[in-house]
């Protein structure tokens, strides 16, 4: 499978990448290429020029900045999964990055490409929602920040403008509670059939003080399961209540259906994995 012809250029800085993008019609960035190349081979995408941003050094670092962790767009899933700062501060993100596809995919795929591409079956969008991340973009009119709640608009659709580069993502570090990511992976591709990120903070008596639940793979884009959160907020998560609340996981969305998982099946798995994720988060030692 050979994609249609394109020009190729390597950019060595953000400025260069942006000026190439503005001066070329029909150009696209390539980072890890693990979402773009399959599309190009199927000819669902036929860019006239590929701007390779992979070697831009300034987009490859992870740093702690006060109570946030800032992750450069070109950090690979493997880098994120193994980075000590992330493992400590954002354990569910490390867990999710470590479960993306397989080793080869994690070695090449980047967080910037993952969020910009916004595949409904990707793993990282729910983590961005869980932590309330901010996406930092840069374009011809300068920098622009997107709160994650305004970023994912639909399948493969985000608020990022075609003239912008995703520079980094910053995650606020929760000061209490604990969080996990539970995933039911497609057995061949590794993509999420259902992925559930959950963060819970309880008081000494086990009453839920705060909770966030976000899902991948289930709807047309990652979403917060606010009905589940509301059902558990301010209450003690008995098995019975948890079971009931988990069934609200698909309340607010149109559930996807494909050859591997019917709508009903996916709905069921979403409830089971929501319950497991919240239970494991509750059982985990809190920060």
């Amino acid at each position, binding site marked *: *499978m*050979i*994609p*249609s*012809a*394109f*020009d*190729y*250029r*390597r950019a*060595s800085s953000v400025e260069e990448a942006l000026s190439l993008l503005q001066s070329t019609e029909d150009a696209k960035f*390539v980072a890890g*290429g*693990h979402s773009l*190349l*399959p599309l190009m*081979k*199927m000819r669902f995408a036929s860019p*006239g*020029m*590929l701007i*390779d941003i*992979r070697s831009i050094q300034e987009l490859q670092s992870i740093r702690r900045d006060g109570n946030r962790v800032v992750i450069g767009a070109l950090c690979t899933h493997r880098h994120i999964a193994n980075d000590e700062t992330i493992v400590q501060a954002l354990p569910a993100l490390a867990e999710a990055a470590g479960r993306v*596809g*397989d*080793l*080869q*995919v994690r*070695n*090449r795929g980047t967080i910037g490409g993952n969020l910009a591409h916004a595949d409904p079956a990707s793993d990282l969008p729910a983590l961005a929602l869980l932590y309330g991340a901010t996406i930092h973009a840069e374009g011809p009119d300068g920098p622009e920040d997107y709160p994650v709640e305004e970023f994912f608009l639909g399948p493969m659709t985000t608020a990022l403008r075609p003239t912008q580069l995703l520079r980094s993502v910053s995650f606020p570090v929760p000061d209490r509670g604990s969080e996990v990511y539970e995933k039911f992976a497609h057995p*061949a*591709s*590794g993509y999420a059939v259902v992925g559930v990120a959950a963060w819970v903070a309880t008081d000494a008596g086990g009453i839920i003080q705060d909770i966030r639940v976000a899902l991948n793979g289930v709807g047309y884009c990652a979403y917060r399961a606010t009905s589940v959160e509301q059902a558990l907020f301010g209450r003690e998560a008995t098995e019975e209540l948890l079971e009931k609340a988990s069934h609200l996981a698909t309340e607010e969305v149109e559930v996807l259906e494909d050859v591997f998982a019917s709508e009903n099946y996916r709905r069921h798995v979403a409830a089971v994995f929501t319950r497991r994720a919240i239970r494991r988060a509750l059982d985990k030692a809190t920060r």
Partner: protein
Amino acid sequence: MSDAVISASGRTPVRMEVNGVAETVYVEPRWLLSDVLRHQLGLTGTHVGCEQGVCGVCTVLLDGVLVRSCLLFAVQVDGHRVTTIEGVTPDEGLSPIQASFQRHHGLQCGFCTPAMVLTAEALLRTHPNPSEADIRDAFSGNICRCTGYQFIVDAIRGCSEEER
């Protein structure tokens, strides 16, 4: 490679170190690394199956890191180091990992084997004594239609325990 635009139709030189040898190949931007290895350099040990990143048979090492060569354009690896199955095979006989695959019946048709062996190379470098879970995780990107995987797991364990 210069910073100039490499145009779609023209061929451009790409310089890479393949199995320790400096190579220059002339490619169109849309040519995949997997095809260039096979057709330009004659390294047919790198196999091509699904061509969309799922089966893993096209796996090679890029700067020592396991990647799929069907999801990389050759122009992207200009200036980098590629290792294929030919690069880890001794001139005579078999490498310890290859010998262990033979001993444990870790292959049948052999189609997935080059990628499996390279994956084992990469795994054993970082995990000299991998657990079964480590092995299964490391191999989750490589599909085998013949062995049922157990003999491959046995080959890796056998090799890590006995040989090195």
